[in-house]
Each structure stands twice: as structure tokens, then as C-alpha cells.
């Protein structure tokens, strides 16, 4: 912090040479980025908030200002409530499971082995990290298409059902993506599958920066693995976990591509796998209710803000300084 301030103070007191032509330079450099950003990002966001207060259907040139009517309608719309419920499940389940698995695997990989030379990562941890991380670099579309076929019925080459039938468990081979009880949970599983590796790498990077002496001390004091993890590792990587959690919650809000590809724009069987992004897209570009769809967007924004603020509040703990 202190260093940043010094740097900025220095930057703010340039010599006479730096003053020359300063404003031309600033305007030239900022004009294009600000224009593109304003046109494609800022103006749509502002318009969306305004649209959400109108009854615009896209067919009429003008729109009527209806105040909070769209929001009142939203909470009486059962399909919206299904989507909202699914988003809340995503917000809670995906980050929780991903962070737990991530921490578990990361601690295995970086401090999991208690060998002769003290605490170290398991053998081949480098290879594991490369493999685990791989889903992260794949397009969500590729992952979605791939798992659409992993979960597909046997007639369409689905390997899960193919495998279940091969070992004689025919009754377990259900239409995973065609059954309202399973469809959404398949999406949840796929999202966790594709997110975990990233957090394993993130957390192991944090764990590797913990000095080995601390672990040796814990070992000497006879701490079990579980205690070591809870009392040493976790507090020292807590900052990273916290940031990772918020980032995951924001990632999980955007289940659009997964649901769109695996279940379709209607949100799967009986629309059971609907999420807010899909509901918004359908409301706008299938039903042409642009005002209503924008209101869903505002709900998404509020949800994101609430999650970020709440989590940062709750998770704030005493910082553990290493140095």
C-alpha cells in the first residue's frame, strides 16, 4: 500500500518536460477505448435498467413507462421462480463443492505426503495439475457438447448408460438429460467438473508459498493431517479461498452456455433446468418481452452484488501475515 502511494505521488508530480503535451496525449489514448467501452458496454447497461421499467415489446417504436410492474410480474411468474431457485442452488452448491474439492486435491498435491524428508506433494503432482487444469482451457461449448453425449441415451452413444448396461445395471440407465429430476443436477455436476481443476492449481500455488518450517513445526508437535490442514494450511490460504469463492459464485451465475447446449433454450424437460440467463434470453428473443427480460437482468445484477458484498463481509477474518 505504502509503495503504491509513493509511486502515485511521484507520477503525479512530473517534471516540466512531462507536462508538455500531456492533455493531448491523454485524450488521444483514452478516446478509442472509452468510446468502444461506452458504446458496447456502458450504454447497454444503462438502457437495460431503463428498459426494465417499461413494457417494451420491440414491435412498437415507443415504450410505456410502467414503473416496477415488470418486477411485480416476475415474482408471480412460476417459471421465473424455478430459474431463480436454480440460480440460488448454483450459487450455493457449485462454489461449496468446488472449493472443498479444490482444497482437498490441492493439499494432497502440495503438502499431502509425509515422507522421509518431511511434508511434500505426492508423486506426480505436476502431471496431475496439468490434467486437472485442462477443462479450464476448453470452451464451455465443447464441454457442453461432450457431456450432452456422455449423458445421452444408449441409442445416441451415451457412455454412462452404455457402461451401466454393459455391467448389467439396466435399471439405472435413465434418460439423464430428459428427466426433470436429473437434468439440472447433471448440469451442476458438469460445471463442478470443469471448474475444480482451476481451483486446485490456484490453491496449490497459494499452499506452495507457505514456508515448510511451519509444517515441520506442526509435525514435531504431533499434529494430525486433519489438524494441520485446519489450523495451518487453511488460515494461510484463506485470502485466496475467499477470492476464489466470490469468483466462482460469479462464474456459477452464468450457467447459460451449459444449460443452452445440454438442455436447450427451453431449459430442459418441463423447463426444470431453467436458469436466469436462459429465462432472460427466451423472454427477449422468443417472447419479445424486452422490458420483462431486462428486469430479469437487473435481478441477476442485484444477486451478483448481494453475493459479492455478503461473502466479503462474512468471510472477513483476521489476516495471517507470513512475514
Amino acid at each position, binding site marked *: 500500500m505504502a509503495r*503504491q502511494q509513493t*509511486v*502515485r505521488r*511521484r*507520477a503525479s508530480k512530473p*517534471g516540466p518536460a512531462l507536462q508538455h503535451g*500531456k492533455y493531448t*496525449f*491523454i485524450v488521444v489514448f483514452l478516446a478509442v*477505448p*472509452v468510446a*468502444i467501452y461506452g*458504446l*458496447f*458496454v456502458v*450504454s*447497454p*447497461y444503462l438502457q*437495460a435498467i431503463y428498459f426494465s421499467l417499461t413494457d417494451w415489446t420491440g414491435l412498437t417504436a415507443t415504450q410505456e413507462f410502467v414503473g416496477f410492474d415488470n418486477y411485480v410480474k416476475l415474482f408471480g411468474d412460476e417459471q421465473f421462480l424455478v430459474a431463480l431457485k436454480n440460480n440460488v442452488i448454483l450459487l450455493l452448491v457449485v462454489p461449496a463443492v468446488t472449493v472443498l474439492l479444490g482444497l482437498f*486435491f490441492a493439499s494432497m*498435491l502440495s503438502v499431502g*505426503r*509425509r515422507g*522421509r524428508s518431511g511434508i511434500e506433494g*505426492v508423486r506426480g503432482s505436476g502431471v496431475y495439475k496439468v*490434467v*486437472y*487444469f485442462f477443462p479450464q482451457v476448453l470452451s464451455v*461449448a*465443447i464441454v*457442453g*457438447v*461432450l457431456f450432452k453425449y456422455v449423458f445421452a441415451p*444408449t441409442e*445416441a*452413444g451415451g*457412455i454412462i448408460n*452404455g457402461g451401466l448396461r454393459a455391467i448389467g445395471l439396466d435399471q439405472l440407465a435413465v434418460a439423464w438429460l430428459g428427466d426433470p429430476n436429473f437434468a439440472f443436477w447433471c448440469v451442476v455436476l458438469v460445471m463442478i*467438473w470443469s471448474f475444480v481443476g*482451476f481451483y486446485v*492449481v*490456484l490453491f496449490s*500455488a497459494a499452499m506452495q508459498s507457505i514456508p515448510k518450517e511451519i509444517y515441520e513445526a506442526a*509435525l*514435531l*508437535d504431533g499434529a494430525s493431517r486433519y489438524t494441520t490442514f485446519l489450523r495451518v494450511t487453511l488460515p494461510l490460504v484463506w485470502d485466496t479461498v475467499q477470492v476464489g469463492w466470490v*469468483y466462482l459464485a460469479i462464474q456459477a451465475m*452464468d450457467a*447459460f452456455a451449459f444449460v*443452452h*447446449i445440454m438442455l436447450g433454450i427451453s431449459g430442459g424437460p418441463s423447463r426444470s433446468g431453467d436458469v436466469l*440467463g436462459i429465462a*432472460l434470453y427466451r423472454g*427477449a*428473443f422468443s417472447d419479445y418481452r424486452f422490458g420483462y427480460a*431486462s428486469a430479469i*437482468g437487473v435481478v*441477476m*445484477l442485484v444477486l451478483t*452484488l448481494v453475493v459479492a458484498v455478503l461473502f466479503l463481509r462474512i468471510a472477513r477474518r483476521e489476516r495471517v501475515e507470513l512475514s
Partner: protein
Amino acid sequence: MTTTIERPSSATPAPRRQQPGVGAGAGALNLLNGTFLLFWGLLTALPLLWAIVSAFKTNTEFVSNPWGLPSVPRLDNFARAWDAANVGQYFLNSVIVCVISVPLTMVLGAMAAYVLSRYEFFGNRIIYFGFVGGLIFPVFLALVPLFFVVRNLGNVPVVGEYLGLNSLVTLALVYVAFSMPFTVFFLTAFFRTQPTSIAEAAIVDGCSHFGLFFRVMLPMAKPGLISIGLFNVLGHWNQYVLPVLLVDDVEKRVLAQGLARLAASQGYRADWTALFAGLVIALLPVLIVYILFQKQVQAGLTAGVLK
């Protein structure tokens, strides 16, 4: 506690020395942990291997023998995917969009970040928070108005025919705009850590503001630019919702979107292996970039979260 803390000498092989804290079950626990790790590794790798193997099968083999290997590798699947299923065109479109969008994001992002981090002027903070504030806004909120903004761009005289919907140039510009918050945020932090003395020396030597940026600051910011560049390459290559919104023309679809549409239409066409060949075509460049630069990719992407 009667624990002896003696260093195991390399000459005499230490005979199963009981370490403090290492219980009798340590070996079993190590094994259990190893099993978990291996299990997740297989869970990650197997679907991908399945996709690659499936791309070489016939459609009959794909359905009747999902776990088996192909009798002969069918390379014609790839030809069918590339031509008949249009994956070649999609691939080219994705390349075109990224070739425009990534360098433009880097240049514009670096310019904005540099000015915002190094120059004090009225409105600096407002513009900075305007950019960074975009990080918290869900892209979905912008979808409806964005569609109309882009559609109306098509009516602008002269340049209108190159912009508007179904235009790869507009799609690239929209990518640039939506990448600005993170790029500016990341690079601003990066430029702030650069020493000011070099900039001052350059100015004393008669360097202009423009020369200072292009000849001194940009080369110095190379590590930061590489991280954020990899981040943007992957982000733009894998983008899904924006092309779905802005591009509908079959000839203009990008790879991610095209494959998803192809998968959606397989219900009645049932040419699965061509689809999987398409998946492999889409997967390979990313796989190669990742394997070659795995350290940088991992560092670049995780640094993104930590900053």
C-alpha cells in the same frame, strides 16, 4: 514425548524411522489419497479421450460399442466435419475474430491502463471505476440493448455494411469492449509497479509521451501483457453467449457456437462421429497451446483471479 530428532544420514539407510505425527496408518492414508487423486484424474481425462477416440469411429461403432476402440481409424470423419458440417468455416471465423479482437484489446487496454495509472487529471478516477465497475455487471443484463445497438450500427452510412449483426468485425469489437474491465484493471495494477525512474530518464533524453509509451513502457510491461494476452485469447476463442446473440448467419458462426448448433441438430442427422471430429478440431489448437505453454497459461489465468 521421547522423539529423537536426528538427521537421517545418507550412508546408513534409516530403518523405518517412526516420525512424530506420522501415524501407523500413514502409508494407508497416502495410498487412499493417491487413489482419490487418480480417480479425479481419470474422471477428467476419460471424457476427453472418449471424444478423441470417438472421432475416429464409424457411426455404427459409436453407438454399438461406446467404450471400444475403432476397428480402423476413420479419417473421413474429419473431412466430413470440415466441409459438410462447415467446421472449417467456423474455425476460420473464430481465427478471424480473435486475430482482430485480441491485439486490439491488448493495445487499447494497455493505452487506457497506462494513462489511468501514470497521469493525474480530472476524471481519472471516474473513468477508472467506470472500467473496473464493469467487472461486477453480468453480461446478460446488457444483452437486450446490445442487440439493438449492434443492429442499429448496421444503418450507419458508409461503414454500416461492415458493422451491424452477422459481422465478425462487430463481434470482435464487442469482445474488445467486454474485455476492457479486466484488462484495464490488470494492466493498471501492472503499470503502477513499474519504476518511474526509467520513464523520467527517457523524458530527460527527449522522449515524447507517445515514444515513452511505445518504446519504453510497453516493452517493460511484456510479462503482464503475456499473462493478460493468454487470458484474452482463451476467453475470446471460447466465448459463447455473445456470438449466439449477434451472429445467426451460417457462414459467420464461430467455432463454439457452430459446434453447439451442430450438436443440437444431430437428433435427426445422426452423424455423431463427424460432430466428434469437429470437437477434436476445436479442441486441438487449445490443447496444443496449453501443453506448450502450460506454466504460463496456469500462471496467467490464476494471476487473473488473484490480482
